[in-house]
């Protein structure tokens, strides 16, 4: 296989495919660069996931999940959809910061946040396709079957519209990569409108995911059920988004070192991270207060001493109140490592909340509890892996972490 090397040495001009898709390498060079331990693990996970997909669509949900008539929603909805949407909130959070609050210094981290959001929502829909009984009917609520009294109808429309918005928001990066200047100029213009629309849509469907559970007052544990649950979901999505931006930018700076600038850039990012930590802290403290009001409203103090009550305290104190204080503490002292760890803890806390509402605190009085099947975990893991692979594929090719030299900033 040295032949390909000599070809390269010939200094033949790169073909379009080699330049755009193989990152300036020949096919065999590119193929060889893909053989890494990470990719090997990824390949195994994705292959298992594909096998489960085949099982799902040949033998049904019964063969691949532990779902039942009592537990119609499991890991694929509770984690892939509920948590996926919350963790994809960085896109709208930062878009608001930069375009509406005009905090321009955050502009460099908008694009990766929007990409995280776009891919997050995309894979939410992929996850949904595993879970829906007949996923090919997914467009039905859009094309003419309107269940307008349903919160789910709202969620469906908003996810569809917001996915479109995010694609438009991100499209300038795609056109810069392709070098299509006219399209790029055009896309930049509508991207701003899409961003504003996206902020409105996000407010509503983040809260709508919580509002879904308003219909289950007897099934959701009183410490989690509250008429305020839509507000809880919305507010927690804000700090979920902010924390995800911190986590994502931290990882990006470790993984894509060749794409980010030197120490000066790192210092800039640290400054933004401190700002994000302060913002997250304020929102989290507010959120803690609202959760407390929820407990008062439900008059559910008596349940705090039960096992689920302690679990509740772990969620709202251990994963919200304490991290909110740690954020402030670390931000004041510029303890970057602590801020980043706290961001990861906060993300875990939001995951915990969504999993609690949709699975652990749901059907709390039922004697038989749901636990996901191995195949459900396999699909979830596959979706996370596909997210990472696609994120890496795009970041390696398109101007996401850096400004494209041929184009002026938006």
């Amino acid at each position, binding site marked *: 296989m040295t032949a390909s090397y000599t070809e390269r040495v010939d200094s033949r001009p790169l073909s379009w495919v080699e330049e755009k898709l193989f990152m300036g390498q020949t096919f065999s060079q590119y193929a060889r660069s893909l053989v890494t331990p990470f990719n090997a693990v990824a390949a195994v996970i994705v292959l298992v996931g594909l096998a489960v997909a085949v099982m799902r669509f040949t033998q049904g949900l019964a063969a691949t999940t532990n779902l039942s008539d009592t537990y119609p929603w499991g890991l694929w909805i509770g984690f892939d959809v509920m948590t996926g949407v919350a963790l994809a909130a960085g896109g709208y959070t930062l878009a608001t910061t930069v*375009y509406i*609050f005009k905090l321009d210094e955050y502009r460099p981290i908008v694009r990766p946040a929007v990409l995280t959001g776009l891919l997050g929502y995309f894979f939410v829909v992929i996850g949904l396709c595993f879970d829906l009984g*007949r996923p090919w*009917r997914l467009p*039905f609520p859009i094309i003419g079957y309107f269940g307008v009294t349903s919160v789910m109808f709202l969620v*469906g429309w908003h996810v569809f519209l917001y996915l479109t918005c995010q694609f438009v928001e991100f499209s300038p990066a795609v056109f810069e990569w392709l070098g299509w200047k006219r399209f790029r100029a055009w896309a930049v213009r509508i991207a*701003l409108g899409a961003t504003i629309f996206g902020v*409105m849509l996000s407010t509503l469907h983040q809260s709508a995911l919580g*509002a879904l559970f308003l*219909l289950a007052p007897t099934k959701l544990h009183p410490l989690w059920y509250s008429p305020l649950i839509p507000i809880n979901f919305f507010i927690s999505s804000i700090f979920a988004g902010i924390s995800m931006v911190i986590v994502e930018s931290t990882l990006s700076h470790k993984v894509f070192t060749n794409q980010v600038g030197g120490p000066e850039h790192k210092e800039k990012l640290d400054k933004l991270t401190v700002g994000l930590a302060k913002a997250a802290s304020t929102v989290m403290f507010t959120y803690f207060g609202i959760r407390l009001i929820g407990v008062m409203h439900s008059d559910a103090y008596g349940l705090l001493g039960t096992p689920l009550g302690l679990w509740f305290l772990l969620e709202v104190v251990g994963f919200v109140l304490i991290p909110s204080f740690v954020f402030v503490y670390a931000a004041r002292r510029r303890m970057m490592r602590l801020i980043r760890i706290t961001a990861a803890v906060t993300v875990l806390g939001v995951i915990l909340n969504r999993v609690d509402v949709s699975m652990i605190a749901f059907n709390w009085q039922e004697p038989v509890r749901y636990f996901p099947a191995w195949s459900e975990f396999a699909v979830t893991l596959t979706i996370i892996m596909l997210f990472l692979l696609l994120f890496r594929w795009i970041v390696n090719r398109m101007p996401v972490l850096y400004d494209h030299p041929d184009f002026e900033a938006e």
Partner: protein
Amino acid sequence: MADMAGCDCNCTPGPPTLSRRGFFRAAAALGGAVALGSVAGTKNALAVEDFDGRPDRFGMLTDMTKCVGCRMCEQACAKANNLPTPPSDPAVMDTPRRPSAQAFTVVNKYTNPADGKPVFRKVQCMHCDEPACASACLVGALKKSPEGPVVYNEDICIGCRYCMIACPFGTLSYDYTSALTPAVRKCIMCYSKIKQEGGMPACASACPPKATIFGKRSELLKAAQQRIMQEPGKYVDQIFGQSEAGGTGWLYLSAVPFDKTGFKTDVGKTPYPEYTKNFLLAVPMVLMMWPAALTGINAIIRRRDKGSEATGKTEPHEEGRR
């Protein structure tokens, strides 16, 4: 999109930064789009509230004091709906079962705490007057029919199963074993039978002691009240379904308190669509007010930035946030 047409400025496409005009224009366009959505939203929220409660709608009455646990209703139901024949062993009644994709109605056995005798309870869809499932369905596959039964249209169901999350009685089932054509399975009160003159649901026709009877809900309710009045010592003074979850099409009479025989007595009396109504009404409000609020915030920030630039401060954003 009337707002768009109303914009008569011959505006050239804005510069790549978000100009204030651009912002207002976008907000105005959104306002138009959203206004349409909000009209639809309001109308539909009212549609939920405006359940006309047709007085001649059908219902069912199960008098548990008459039920002998013969499970003829289970068999008749299975036959009418092409379901597997129920197991003949009466022992299946000992552990509480719920309706499933293979059995739209089941009879469970309980013990009367007063005299230790068995009590039987037939379970199936309650056919709520304002069904949680129908209000939850994003494509309108579940509907309260004018005749009374809550009916299901398999041809448009996408299988999200939110109806099953919503149903407070836990009577909806899903056919998880089907790979490509799974569907929600439930009692539809033998809808096609009762639409014909003199027709009645299979379970009611099959019931030897006439424990389960079919008729107009209003008349069944009166009959139930009469039975309680005539024999007050025999019955608990409650008709389950009269106002539970806003009222159900299926009514129950019992000699044993309902919470002793597995009834969901915690469902409350509020019609379930009420629980999401406020949220659905808030949606158009948020959509209408967000553009104004966000535009306002944006305008204030711009003005402040401009002011501080004029006074020579180079980093306007640094101020006030530290």
